[in-house]
C-alpha cells in the first residue's frame, strides 16, 4: 500500500513508511498477548471479588470454618505441588519452541496437560470425600464457589493447551519466530497457578489459624 504513494516531497513519509508497514505485521501477534494480559488483569479482580467476599463473611462469622465443614489438607497440598511445578514444565515447552524444537514443545505441553488433569481429578476426589456440599453452610458456599470457579479456569487452560497440541501437529505451524498461541496458553496457565496460590493460602492455610 505504501508503494502506491507516488510523491516528491515525501522524505519524511518514505522514512516512516517501512516502519509503519513492518509495525503493522509484527504488531498483530503482540496485540493478542496484550489483549490477553488486559483480560487476565480484569479476570483476576473477579477472583478478587470472591476473595473479598470470603474475608468479609469470615469476619462476621463466629466460628470459621463452622464445625463439620473442616477442610482436608493432604490432597490439596499434593495438588498444589503438582500445579505449581506444572508452571515450570510449561515454561520448558515455551523455551523449546524458542529453539525451534516442536517435539520438545509437544513433550512438555503433554506433560503439563497430564499434570493439569491430575489436579482436576484430585479436586473431584476432594469434593467427593469432603462429606458436605455447596449449600451446606456459608463456608461451604465460599469453598465450592472459589475452588469451583478456579477449577473452571484450570479446565479452560487445559483446553488451550490441548488446542496448542492439536495445532502443533501441522508442520511449521509453530516456530521460533511464530508461536504466539503457545505463549498465550503459557501466560494463562501461569495466571491459573498464581490464583491457586492465593486461594490455597486463604482457604487451606488461613483457616488453620
Amino acid at each position, binding site marked *: 500500500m505504501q*508503494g502506491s504513494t507516488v510523491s516528491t516531497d515525501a522524505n519524511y*513519509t518514505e522514512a516512516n513508511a517501512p*516502519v509503519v508497514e513492518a509495525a503493522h505485521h509484527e504488531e498483530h501477534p503482540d*496485540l493478542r498477548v*496484550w489483549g490477553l494480559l*488486559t483480560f487476565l488483569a*480484569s479476570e483476576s479482580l473477579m477472583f478478587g*471479588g470472591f476473595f473479598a467476599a470470603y474475608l468479609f463473611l469470615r469476619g462476621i*462469622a463466629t466460628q470459621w470454618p463452622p464445625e463439620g465443614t473442616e477442610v482436608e489438607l493432604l490432597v490439596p497440598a499434593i495438588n498444589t505441588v503438582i500445579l505449581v511445578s506444572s508452571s515450570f514444565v510449561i515454561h520448558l515447552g515455551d523455551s523449546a519452541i524458542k529453539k525451534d524444537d516442536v517435539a520438545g514443545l509437544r513433550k512438555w505441553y503433554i506433560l503439563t496437560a497430564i499434570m493439569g488433569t491430575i489436579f482436576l481429578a484430585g479436586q473431584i476426589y476432594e469434593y467427593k470425600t469432603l462429606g458436605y456440599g455447596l449449600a451446606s*453452610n456459608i463456608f461451604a458456599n465460599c469453598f465450592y464457589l472459589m475452588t469451583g470457579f478456579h477449577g473452571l479456569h484450570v479446565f479452560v487452560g487445559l483446553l488451550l493447551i490441548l488446542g496448542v497440541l492439536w495445532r502443533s501437529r501441522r508442520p511449521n505451524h509453530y516456530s521460533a519466530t511464530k508461536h504466539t498461541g503457545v505463549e498465550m496458553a503459557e501466560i494463562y496457565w501461569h495466571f491459573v497457578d498464581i490464583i491457586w496460590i492465593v486461594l490455597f493460602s486463604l482457604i487451606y492455610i488461613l483457616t488453620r489459624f
Partner: protein
Amino acid sequence: MTNLSVDATAQVGQPLPGAPNNWKRFFSFSTDHKVIGIQYLVTSFFFFLVGGVFAMIIRGELITPEADLLDRTVYNAMFTMHGTVMLFLWTFPSLVGLSNYLVPLMIGAKDMAFPRLNAAAFWMVPVFGVILMASFLVPGGPSQSGWWAYPPVSLQNPTGNFINGQVLWILAVAISGVSSIMGAINFVTTIVRMRAPGMTWFRMPAFVWTVFAAQIIQLFGLPALTAGAVMLLLDITVGTSFFDPAKGGDPVLFQHLFWFYSHPAVYVIILPIFGIFSEIFPVYARKPLFGYKVVAVSSLIITGLSGIVWVHHMFASGTPGWMRMVFMATTMLISVPTGIKVFAWVATIWGGKLRLTTPMLFALGGLTMFVFAGVTGIMLASAPFDIHVNNTYFVVGHFHYVIYGAVVMGMYAAFYHWFPKMTGRMYSEGLGKLHFALTLLGTNLNFLPMHPLGLQGMPRRVASYDPEFAFWNVVASIGAFLLGMSTLPFILNMIGSWVQGEKADKNPWRAIGLEWLVSSPPTPENFEELPIVVAEPYGYGKSEPLVANADKLEVAHESR
C-alpha cells in the same frame, strides 16, 4: 494503483464489511468499527425509546396520588426495567458505539485492535436486550427489585419458577458485562498500541483520553459486579446463603459488590460525555481547549478516585461512622478533577466567537445541567444530608440531572456534531433547534420538581403518595411527556436527513481532528496511508497543520 490498493487490503488480512455500501451492512456481522459504531448507536437508541415508554408509564401512574393506573407489582417491574434498560441498553452501548466510531479515526488507526471481538461484543447487545424483554413473558413478570437488585428483595421468588424475572435479569446483566469487558479490552489495547505515527499521548484528543479512562473503570469494576451477580444467582437457584443473614450471609455484602462497580459505572457514562464537551466547545468557540493536558489527565484522576467512593451509596446501610467520614471525603474529592474540567470548558468558551449550532446548544445545555447535578451531588456526598434524603426523590432528581441533563444532552450533541461525518449528509438545523428547546424544557420540568419533593420526604419507588405532593408530581409528569415528544423531531431529523439531507463535505464545521481529514463517511479502512501527526490537537487560531501527509490519507479512495 487500484490493483495495488486491493492487494494491500488483502495483505492486512482483516475481513472487510460483508456487504459494500448499502444498508444491508448494518445487519451483517461486519467488523468495520464504523458500521459497528452505528449498529450500537441505533440499537441503543431503540432501547432508549423503550425505556422512555416505561418512564412515561411510571409518570402516568404518578400523575395522581392514588395507585390507580397500574397494579403495584407492574409498577415495581416498570421502574426496575426502566432503570435497567436505560443503563445497560442505552447509556453504556450508546457511548460504546460513539467511542467505537470515533476512537480509531481520532488516533489514526484503520480499525480497532480486535475487529471480530468488537463485532461479537456488539451482537451480544440485542441478545441480552431480548432476554431482558422476555422477562415480561415469564410467570410473575419481570424483576421487581429495582435496578440494584438488592437482597433480600431480589431473593424472593413468589411464583416458585426456576426461570423467573430475576434470573433473566441476572442473565441479561451478566451478558452485558461480558460484552463490556470484551469492549474494554479492545479499547484499551487499541488506544495503547494502535496510535498513528507521531500520535503521542499528549496529542490525543481529550475524547480518547476519556474513553481510555472510562474503559479502565470497566476492567477493574465490572468483575466485582459479576462476582456479586454469580453469588446472587446461586442464592436464588441452588440455595446458597451468601446474602441470607439467617444462615451466616450478609445482604450488605451484595451492596458492596454492587456499588464497587455501579458507582464507578457512573463515571464510565459521564467521562465520554466530558470528552464530547471537550471536543465540541473548541470547534464552535474557535479557541483551543483551555488547559488541554490538565483536562486530559484529570480523566485518569477521576478513574483512580472512582474506585474509593462506593460506600456513599450505603450511608444508611448500617455503615460505621468512621467509614462514612472516609467515603464522604473521597466523594467530595471527585469534585476537584471534575471542577477542573468545568472551569476549563468555561475558559474555552470565554471570549470565543460562538456559533450556536444544534450540537453547541446541546453541549452548553448539557454543561449547565451537569453543573446543577454536580451541586446536588456535593450535597448528597455529605453524610448528614444524605441520611436525611436517602431513598427520596431528591436522589432521583440528582441522578436524572446527570443521566438525562448531562449524558443524554451530551449524546444528542455528539449525534448532531458527528452526523455529517457518519452519514455524509447535513441534518436540519431548524428541527435540531426545536429538539433542543423541547429537551431543555422537558428535562427541567421533569426533574427539577423531584428536588422539592425529595426534601419534603416523598420516597422513591412508590406507586401512591400523600396528596400534598400532588402539585410537583403533576409538573414532573407533564415534563416527562414533553421529553417523550421531544424525541420525535430528533427521529424525523436523523432519518429524513440521512435519506435526503444536503451532502456534507469532509469538514463542515471547520473542525481540527484526524476524523475531519477523511471523506464523510470515511472509507472502510479509514486511512489509505496512516497519518503522521505533527501537532497537538485543538490548534484553533494557529495555522499549523495537524498531519504531515494530509493529502495522502485518501489516495486510493480518490483513484477508485
